[in-house]
């Protein structure tokens, strides 16, 4: 008789459980809509279906006015199935499981002492499930942590969010480690006594699994801390870069100190000038001569160009250099004129100087170069001279100014470098 009742109970559980699990599949779309949004949309659901979902505690309604939401456990289940790290939950509550296990062991012992084998079997099954749950919970949590770590917290986009998520993960690890510390194997050894099945389950098996979890947690913690350091470094670099860029934009004239002139030159600034290790063909080493000859033979022959073209090119170049040389000579003469002004005395006008120095430059060319030289001076040096232009209007009705001559004077307070 005692055997038939539990069977009936099992059957009823099986029947209802299957029916309710089927609800999940049947209304999968509505449930997923509720998972991604705040509430479950009711459009597609009949009243009967809704009531069934509510009584299966798949959905719940916080109050009459509010919409229908997913039950927390279902949300967790979906998050777990999807490995959705934004919503995945870490359950580090070990104390309650331990309490449950103590009770089950007690109950198992009593059943054994009373020789109630079926009840003993049931308690052992539940105990095994409790141990598996505990193991699974750590395994899930560790899996979730590794996923977050390996994706560099890719499920959030901003660095600041990543830093927060990393900090949250580290806190979870802390709680998981605290949870592990609650499990006292000495106590479990006392609790199981001489029972072989219990000892295998609660001591050897659990201890083996938990020590693996402990190692994993420590490893993932170490990596999280490293990653956090990297995040912080990135953040600090990012802020430094944008801060300095902003500062330089606001202060275009900013010049830092010349660290190279300090007694102790900072390490970072001390970068030696580059040296090139040059080499050339040398024939003072007889064994090399063959190689060099070889190289010489392999030189690509220059493509033969028709002669008249080559001649034309050369002539043109000749003219170019000639012009450049004249230009250079003109410039030097003008510079000498400027030096004469600097050296003092009553400065002659540009044309007077040209005359006196016996230069054969054309008037216009000469004046033009003197003006160009003035324009080309650095501003500081320009300020040291005063330029007077002797000019006249081109005609009564023409306001064009013609420059006849230029007189250059040193300013009263000549500055250095002029």
């Amino acid at each position, binding site marked *: 008789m005692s055997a038939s009742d539990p069977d009936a109970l099992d059957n009823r559980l099986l029947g209802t459980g299957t029916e309710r699990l089927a609800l999940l599949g049947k209304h999968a779309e509505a449930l997923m809509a509720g998972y991604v949004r705040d509430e479950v949309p009711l459009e597609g659901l009949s009243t009967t279906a809704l009531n069934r979902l509510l009584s299966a505690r798949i959905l719940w309604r916080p109050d009459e006015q509010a919409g229908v939401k997913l039950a927390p456990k279902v949300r967790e289940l979906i998050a777990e199935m999807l490995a959705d790290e934004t919503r995945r939950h870490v359950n580090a509550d070990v104390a309650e499981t331990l309490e449950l296990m103590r009770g089950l062991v007690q109950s198992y012992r009593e059943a054994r002492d009373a020789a109630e084998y079926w009840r003993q079997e049931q308690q052992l099954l539940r105990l095994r499930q409790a141990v598996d749950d505990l193991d699974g919970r750590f395994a899930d949590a560790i899996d979730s942590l590794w996923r977050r770590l390996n994706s560099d917290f890719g499920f959030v*986009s*901003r*660095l*600041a969010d*990543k830093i927060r998520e990393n900090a949250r993960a580290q806190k979870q690890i802390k709680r998981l480690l605290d949870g592990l510390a609650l499990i006292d194997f000495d106590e479990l050894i006392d609790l199981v006594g001489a029972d072989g099945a219990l000892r295998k389950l609660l001591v050897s098996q659990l201890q083996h699994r938990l020590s693996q979890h402990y190692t994993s947690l420590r490893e993932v913690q170490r990596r999280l801390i490293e990653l956090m350091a990297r*995040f912080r*470094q*990135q*953040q*600090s*670099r*990012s*802020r*430094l*870069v*944008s*801060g*300095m*860029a*902003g*500062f*330089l*934009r606001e202060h275009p004239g900013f*010049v*830092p*100190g*010349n*660290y*190279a*002139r300090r007694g102790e*030159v*900072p*390490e*970072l*600034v*001390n*970068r*030696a*000038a*580059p*040296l*090139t*290790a040059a080499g050339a063909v040398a024939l003072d080493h007889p064994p090399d001569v063959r190689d060099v000859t070889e190289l010489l033979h392999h030189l690509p022959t220059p493509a033969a160009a028709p002669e008249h073209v080559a001649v034309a090119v050369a002539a043109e170049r000749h003219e170019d250099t000639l012009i450049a040389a004249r230009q250079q000579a003109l410039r030097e003469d003008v510079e000498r004129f400027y030096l004469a002004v600097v050296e003092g005395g009553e400065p002659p006008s540009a044309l007077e100087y040209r005359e006196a120095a016996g230069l054969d430059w054309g008037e216009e060319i000469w004046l033009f170069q003197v003006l160009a030289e003035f324009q080309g001076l650095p501003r500081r040096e320009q300020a040291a001279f005063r330029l007077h232009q002797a000019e006249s209007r081109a005609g009564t009705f023409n306001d064009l100014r013609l420059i006849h001559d230029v007189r250059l004077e040193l300013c009263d307070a000549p500055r250095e470098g002029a």
Partner: protein
Amino acid sequence: MIEESMKERSLVELGPLLERLLAGDFLCAVSDDAAFRRLQDEATRERIDAYLRPLNRRLATNEEGSVYFLAWRQLDDAARDQLSRQLAETVGSLLPMLEWLQLVQEALGRDGPVSPGDVLKPADFSSRCEDNQGLRERLERLATDPFFGSQSEQLDAQIKQVFKRLRERGYLRQPHADRQYFVATAKIDYLIDLVRFIRDEEQLPIDDQAPAGQERLL
């Protein structure tokens, strides 16, 4: 005798490395992995230093040890002149470099500025900039900055020029001449270190620690 020839041989092995260092290159795990691994060995570093002594140079590195370069051993006036010029040049290139780092970070939606080992593809830039007028304009401004010196009005040509300059300056490495992808070198670390140094020395009001709620200043 045998020891002597061993020493000589090992220096011969270091030839290419020495040549790069002497040419003013920055050596890191990206720019020259094999050389960088050799430089991790203290005995090798000492040998290199001994070799460099008559050239008035020594091996130097940054704080993280992520990059090696050559420093003057004794600072005479000529060396100080050269360092002053070099520093002025670096400071002059600071803003375009920093703007480039910011641009990459934004265009590619990265968490931080480019760091050594990051792979950058010009093609990614063109597609981002084509879609975003703001980025396009900033890139244009940057590319035509004298530091990058692009003369073109074409987006692709501008990007190409920017990458070319950065490669020439040793901030990027192009593993295959015919393939358009680049890897950031640890010279970027050096640049960041320098920025931090200038900030500290000049006591500039730039804070790199995040206050809550103000993560993006861009």
